[in-house]
């Protein structure tokens, strides 16, 4: 019993939070202003609790298992959830259904936690559904806007489609190996054609969720239509969780098929980086812009994943940690501005520096980190991904990835230029930032500047593996 409590700590805490919110909803008249700080505090406590009593162990006959690395990955997702609750508090306070929003968010996160820890295909499929469906409801949260419903519809259809493909893959895999347990399956894989076919189906389902090109078409529309809190959840927490699961599935279960998936990853990562970058250049809406930039970032993550060992795993976890801070800071600025005056176009940002220097610097810092320019942490993240990906000594592959960094710098600079250099008769007026939001920004900014200089963190992640 005691083991059950400690091993499933993250999931149990999430469930507890969901039930707490349910009770709050039952009671009448709790205002958003009082509820939101409470949720923020609870999330912070949840985040801190994630760092204690982390052990390795199995539960429910191998259905569920966890390691300290998985606990760390879950803590990263908790951290992102905490930051979102702070950064988007302007929008959250105004929304009519605050408890529901967080209930959906926590349910999705519960699904992700179970997904990360899943030990067999059944658990895997169930938790993946749990991690997806609530997000579609979150995308629909701007009830007055048609685009929000459209986003939710697109999201639900595309995830239903990818679930179908996943189930296909799962059934083939079961047929080929005769087991649904990951631990047994790993030893039974021998690159037979049926297994490769099953793997391709499974891979495709992941590619949908991670929006790897050419399975990315839903991403931009969903990002644009959803409220920013949901968009940042999608782009950071969803992406991060799926990336963790993807890498651990590839390494743990399909380790024997490395030759197959290495080629797939190389090809797909190049296409993803190139298409993501090229499409980002022309975007006008900041959310669509960040959507394509996050597609390109996923391409980079794939470079790291292709390594196939501890260095790849560590560099991906490290990159996701940095990506959480950088991307959330960018979305946070977009959220504050959109919340204040509804403007989401990059052209509206012209002359922002004159009126809002703090927000401008935050945005610039976040974008430079996404572009991988030192001294920001993004530089370290990208360098380590490339170091991992280059271990096979395929120099042309690294060269393509490095050249993509130039393209990405081009469009990130487009936003920086609008903010700092372009003139505008009517810039966005001065926006008062509440202390909580400011604190979250400062947290992100400090992390972006300092993570890279604090080298022990990478070694810590490596030691967890």
């Amino acid at each position: 019993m005691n083991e059950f409590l400690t091993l499933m700590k993250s999931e149990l805490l999430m469930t507890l939070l969901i039930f707490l919110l349910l009770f709050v909803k039952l009671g009448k008249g709790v205002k958003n202003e009082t509820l939101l700080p409470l949720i923020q505090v609870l999330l912070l406590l949840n985040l801190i609790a994630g760092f204690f009593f982390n052990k390795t162990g199995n539960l429910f006959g191998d259905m569920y298992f966890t390691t300290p690395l998985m606990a760390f990955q879950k803590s990263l997702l908790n951290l992102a959830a905490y930051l979102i609750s702070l950064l988007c508090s302007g929008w959250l306070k105004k929304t009519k259904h605050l408890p529901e929003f967080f209930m959906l968010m926590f349910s999705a996160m519960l699904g992700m936690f179970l997904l990360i820890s899943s030990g067999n295909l059944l658990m895997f499929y169930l938790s993946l559904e749990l991690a997806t469906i609530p997000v579609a409801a979150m995308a629909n949260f701007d009830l007055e806007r048609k685009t929000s419903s459209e986003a939710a519809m697109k999201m639900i259809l595309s995830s239903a489609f990818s679930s179908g493909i996943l189930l296909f893959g799962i059934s083939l895999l079961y047929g080929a190996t005769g087991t649904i347990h990951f631990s047994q399956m790993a030893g039974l894989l021998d690159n037979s054609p049926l297994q490769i076919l099953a793997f391709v189906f499974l891979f495709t389902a992941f590619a949908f969720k991670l929006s790897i090109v050419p399975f990315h078409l839903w991403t931009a529309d969903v990002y644009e239509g959803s409220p920013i809190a949901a968009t940042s959840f999608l782009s950071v927490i969803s992406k991060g969780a799926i990336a963790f699961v993807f890498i651990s599935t590839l390494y743990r279960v399909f380790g024997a098929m490395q030759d197959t998936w290495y080629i797939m990853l190389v090809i797909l990562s190049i296409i993803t980086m190139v298409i993501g970058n090229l499409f980002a250049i022309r975007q006008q809406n900041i959310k669509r812009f960040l959507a394509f930039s996050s597609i390109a970032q996923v391409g980079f993550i794939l470079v790291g994943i292709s390594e196939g060992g501890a260095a790849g795993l560590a560099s991906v976890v490290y990159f996701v940690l940095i990506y959480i801070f950088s991307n959330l800071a960018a979305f946070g600025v977009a959220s504050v501005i959109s919340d204040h005056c509804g403007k989401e176009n990059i052209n509206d940002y012209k002359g922002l520096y004159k009126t809002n220097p703090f927000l401008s610097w935050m945005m610039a810092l976040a974008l430079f980190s996404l572009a991988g320019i030192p001294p920001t942490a993004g530089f370290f993240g990208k360098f380590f991904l490339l170091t991992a990906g280059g271990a096979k000594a395929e120099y042309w592959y690294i060269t393509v990835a490095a050249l993509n960094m130039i393209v990405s710098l081009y469009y990130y600079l487009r936003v920086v230029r609008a903010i700092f250099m372009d003139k505008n008769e009517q810039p966005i007026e001065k926006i008062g930032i509440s202390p909580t939001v400011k604190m979250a920004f400062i947290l992100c900014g400090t992390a972006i500047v300092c993570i890279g200089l604090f080298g022990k963190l990478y070694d810590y992640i490596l030691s967890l593996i």
Partner: protein
Amino acid sequence: MNLLWLIGVPLVTALAVLLSRNRDQVRWIALTGAAAQLGVAIMLYFLYTKERSAGNTAAILFQQDHEIFSSLHIRFHLGVDGISVAMIMLTAFVGIAGALVSWNIEKMTKEFYFLLVLLSLGAYGFFISLNLFVLFFFLEISVIPKYLLIGIWGSGRKEYSANKLALMLMGGSALILVGILGLYFASGNSFDLVELSNMNLPAATQKLIFPLLFIGFGVFTALFPLHTWVPDGHSSAPTAGSMFLAGISMKLGGYGCLRVATWLLPAGAVAYSNIIIVLSVIAILYGAFATMMQKDLKYINAYSSVSHVGFSLLGIGMLTQTAITGSLMQMVSHGLMTALFFAVIGMIYDRTHTRMVGEMGGLMKMMPFISTVFFIVGLCSLGLPGLSGFVAEMTVFVGSWENDHMIYRIATILAAMSIVVTAVYILRAVGQTAMGPVKNESFLTLTDARWNEKLAAILLLLAILAIGLVPGWLNDLLRPSAEAIMQKVSAFK
């Protein structure tokens, strides 16, 4: 000496600038920081020569080594040799001059000085790092300040120039990144310069990686045909920005070509030396002739920089000890000279609000100090004996002539001939600006240099004269370190 001082002082300055309250505080903090940095640099020089004269013959002095990412073999490994000491002094001189000439910046003073300090921090870090990752980190740190300095405080087509500069330098960085990773994997996971230089990598690997690193650093130092960011970037940048770009940032590339590409991959350097020579001769001649056609003072200096930097690349390509010493001298000399040139152009522009040579004339009457400095720096640029330019270029030519093959001789002669062209455009520009009748009535009321401008000019002039009149000390500083590099190369010649 603890080399952490060199990055500690700018770091503290940058933080102090951020925390300061008004414009006056910002300027004085930045100036104090730059002065302190100059003091540290000069102290470094004296301590370095003291160690050397005490008989310390280790290639690299004042080493220190701290762990950062131990699992990836990334260490904070610092150390200096004569080359780095010379470059650090150059950076310190240009740094304080840059802080002085920007005294009257009104627009966002705090941000301006912060970025300026950050830019010099990158240069100091770059010159003292002995770990490729750390070196690359410091090289890249300057991308943001350069971009913002040009884009916000610049003039003319500043957004275009800032974008072009950032993207081209990023392109160079991408090649360097691949080269560094190539070295890392080829050497069995080492980023350490000293370790790598003692490893004899297979010649085929060296020939594969050398072009990546050399071209990558070459973009920074205006290697033909990747020099196109130089004219636009320099002419659009604010005065201090141009000074830092041409005086310091371009030297990062030259230093990298030598320290990283040539030192670590000598077989590659030997294999590609012909191509380097051809490209640098083209740059020298093309730069000189292109300058003849320019009418804007900043463009004149920017294109002449392409030509002058060509000499230092020529010296590297020639691969003799004298030529490499000359190449390094040219880097220092050109850094000082071009910084002073841009400073003077900035002073003139601040007063006349034009940079077109044709619209000026007779400035000597109103601003004798500025015009005199302009003359001296012009003469330095065309290589008048007694000034630093002559010493450096002469050393390059003598070193080049040591190669007796016909191609090297022809290249040397062609390069030397460019000096005539230099004389034409320099004398024309300086003469038309300072001499002759005053073309514009409104110029008659203009004033001469203020104290800060005078101080900046005098500091740089002193350095130029110190090299021009007594070049021995610089030669003694650079030659042993150049010899260490040549030892590696001569094994493959």
